[in-house]
């Protein structure tokens, strides 16, 4: 079963949304790991855009702060690689316990 399918194995899933790089990638990294530890089944990462037409004021603000902090698409993928590595280590440790 894929990770996404297994996330819905209970019927419902808890899916936090986090804007990458708000206000920096280190904060995003820590926020994602905390969400995992606190029971998130899936995490949606937002790539900041200068003009987020479909977003409300809260996520618009997050996008603007992230871009002001220097986030780029390249840095988002770098961050995702780092998160996957940390998650794999976390999952392996939990499986052993």
């Amino acid at each position, binding site marked *: 079963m894929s990770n996404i399918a297994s996330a819905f194995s209970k019927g419902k899933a808890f899916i936090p949304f986090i804007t990458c790089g708000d206000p920096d990638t280190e904060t995003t990294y820590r926020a994602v790991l905390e969400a995992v530890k606190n029971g998130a089944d899936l995490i949606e990462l937002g790539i900041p*855009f*200068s*003009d*987020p*037409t*479909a977003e*409300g*004021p809260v996520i*618009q603000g997050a996008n*603007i702060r992230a*871009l002001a902090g220097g986030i*780029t*698409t*390249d840095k988002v993928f770098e961050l995702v690689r780092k998160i996957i590595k940390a998650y794999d280590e976390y999952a392996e440790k939990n499986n052993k316990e």
Partner: protein
Amino acid sequence: MDSKGRFGVHGGQYIPETLMNAIHELERAYEHYKNDPEFQKELSTLFNEYANRPSLLYYAKKMTEDLGGAKIYLKREDLNHTGAHKVNNVLGQALLAKKMGKTRLIAETGAGQHGVATATAAALMGMECVVFMGEEDTKRQALNVYRMKLLGASVVPVKTGTRTLKDAVSEAMREWTTRVEDTHYCLGSVMGPHPFPTIVRDFQAVISKEIKEQMLEKEGRLPDVVMACVGGGSNAIGSFYHFIEDKDVQLIGCEAAGRGIDTFETAATVNTGRLGIFHGMKSYFCQDEFGQIAPVYSISAGLDYPGVGPEHAHLHDIGRASYVPVTDDEAVEAFEYLSRTEGIIPAIESSHAIAYAMKLAPTMDKDKIIVVTVSGRGDKDCAAIARYRGENIYE
């Protein structure tokens, strides 16, 4: 145009699902009413009895003699009610909205011209009207804010992003998603998701239809060049449309280069932009290497937009129209030149087209003909131009 609102690779419907129903409803309604003789009759009555159409095609004799080349005609959209071509589109969309049973119009505006035109149509048709305007622009164009309120509209200052035109478009789209049942979004240019670029073009195409008739009557032949300024590109596509199949007629769009296309302070999208997707359409946009929309600049608030309509992007791709950059300095000189030479004060937007005509006409033979569309009147710009020239005038 191909299916699904494509112009070559451009156009399309890149919108959130929340807008899809509204867009489909609009598409169906427009498909029906564009072929309805009753609708077309009502629209042409509004054009002729209310908006002062047909607008004049004026032979600029002094300008022609002074420049010493091609014969110059001016298409006087500045003489329309509300002072610009914007009214053509707004009357069409307001009538369409009314037929669709909508009671409320929302619109975005930059300098305020489209907002004023929408407020005017709403007043005429007894509809509620809300205009979204960047907070920066409400300060720069305080008089137009007052005009809209006088006409019964409410004006919402947009405080997101750069607080200018593109943010006003985003905010109007957001508002539309939350209130589709009674509200029509009256988009002001040939941009956004399909069917807007087609709807706005069809309502503005009256400009080229009239130019053609008037030119045949006055000169017995078609012009050699038709030119107009391009921001989103509604007056330009309106001026070009009925000439697109007449391959001998050269079509030229004049973009706002701001301080120059080699600087970051420019809004010349075709000349400096790249292919992208924004505000519901695929087209050319001013953007950075990661696809973030770049801040744009022009002295003209009406041309200060980071994209261009998808049909223009396509006409550029296939080489049917050419798009030339015109700087702030050149536009201001043209603004003053036309005022002095012909007694016509053109909008600073339109002055971009006048400026290029001043360069092109002397290089052409005297038996050639240029038509320049004067998209709007320049009274709104006088204080800003005076300040540009160092005179401390405030409205």
